[in-house]
């Protein structure tokens, strides 16, 4: 009995590396979660011949994505989805305005699927200009395209 008690009390858990690993895992999952909320989904952007545009770079920007999902047009902004109907476009304009209020100098990029018609993309331009008017700022609107070969599909 005495021997058994002595053996139990001899167990010594080293908590330092355990906590170390736990924190590393937390940091890792936080970063992965941030990346999964990426606002730049892979979209088949237009590919003009002899592109004269400037590289997008890695500076902060607001990206309004225009996607085609099962034949329906959907807009996304920072992980939020908006349908191409009246209320969806109003919500999109409000979401852009909210972001422009926190940083009025950030450029707003239109990333649209090249297979879409102009009528599907035009509401995004209207929503951005409406948001800028609402905030009372002059916004820089940019259109995204693919530069040369490679990159997103």
């Amino acid at each position, binding site marked *: 009995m005495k021997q058994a008690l002595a053996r139990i009390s001899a167990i010594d858990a080293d908590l330092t*590396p355990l906590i*170390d*690993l736990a924190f*590393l*895992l937390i*940091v*890792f999952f936080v*970063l*992965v979660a941030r*990346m999964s909320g990426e606002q*730049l989904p892979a979209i088949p*952007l*237009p*590919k*003009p*011949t*002899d*592109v*004269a*545009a*400037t*590289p*997008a770079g*890695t500076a902060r920007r607001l990206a309004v994505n225009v996607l085609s999902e099962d034949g329906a047009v959907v807009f996304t902004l920072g992980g939020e989805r908006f349908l191409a109907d009246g209320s969806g476009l109003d919500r999109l304009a409000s979401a852009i305005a909210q972001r422009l209020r926190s940083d009025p100098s950030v*450029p707003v*990029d239109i990333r*649209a*699927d*090249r*297979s*879409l*018609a*102009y*009528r*599907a*993309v*035009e509401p995004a*331009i*209207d929503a951005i*200009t409406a948001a*800028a*008017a609402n905030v009372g700022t*002059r916004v*820089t*609107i*940019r*259109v*995204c*395209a*693919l*530069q*040369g070969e*490679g*990159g*997103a599909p």
Partner: protein
Amino acid sequence: MGRTVSDTRIRLAMTPMIDVVFLLLVFFVCTVRFERNEAVYTLDLPQRGLTADPLALQQRALVIRVGTRAADAVSIELQADGLRERPASFDALAAALTRVRRGTAPEPANTGLFLAEHPVLIAPTRECGWQDAVDAFNAAVRAGFRNIGFARSGT
């Protein structure tokens, strides 16, 4: 003798190794940049009338009408005061725009009518493909024009 063997047996300390592996992983996750090979065109939208100077002189824009693609061809029309052309392709459109832009050819051949700051409006039809609309935009940028915007469809 048996004790000596057990003392010299190699023991791998896994915890610091995993620790370092995770640190390296986090480091690479933080530093990696996904180059998307994306380029951007800056739009100028004076026609939408939200920020335009009301006292500024109204310059009539150079309009590029882009139609709906049919049978792998798209109709392109370049319109301005005293100018109406129908380029067969976006390369031909870029060439036509370069020709009408002032300052692209050495004197005395520099007879272009429009300055680089002259407004250019891309006017696609509602059913025009986004690819074709961006191609027309790209042609205007290639020709050296700087104030380029999209007109409302149907105008």
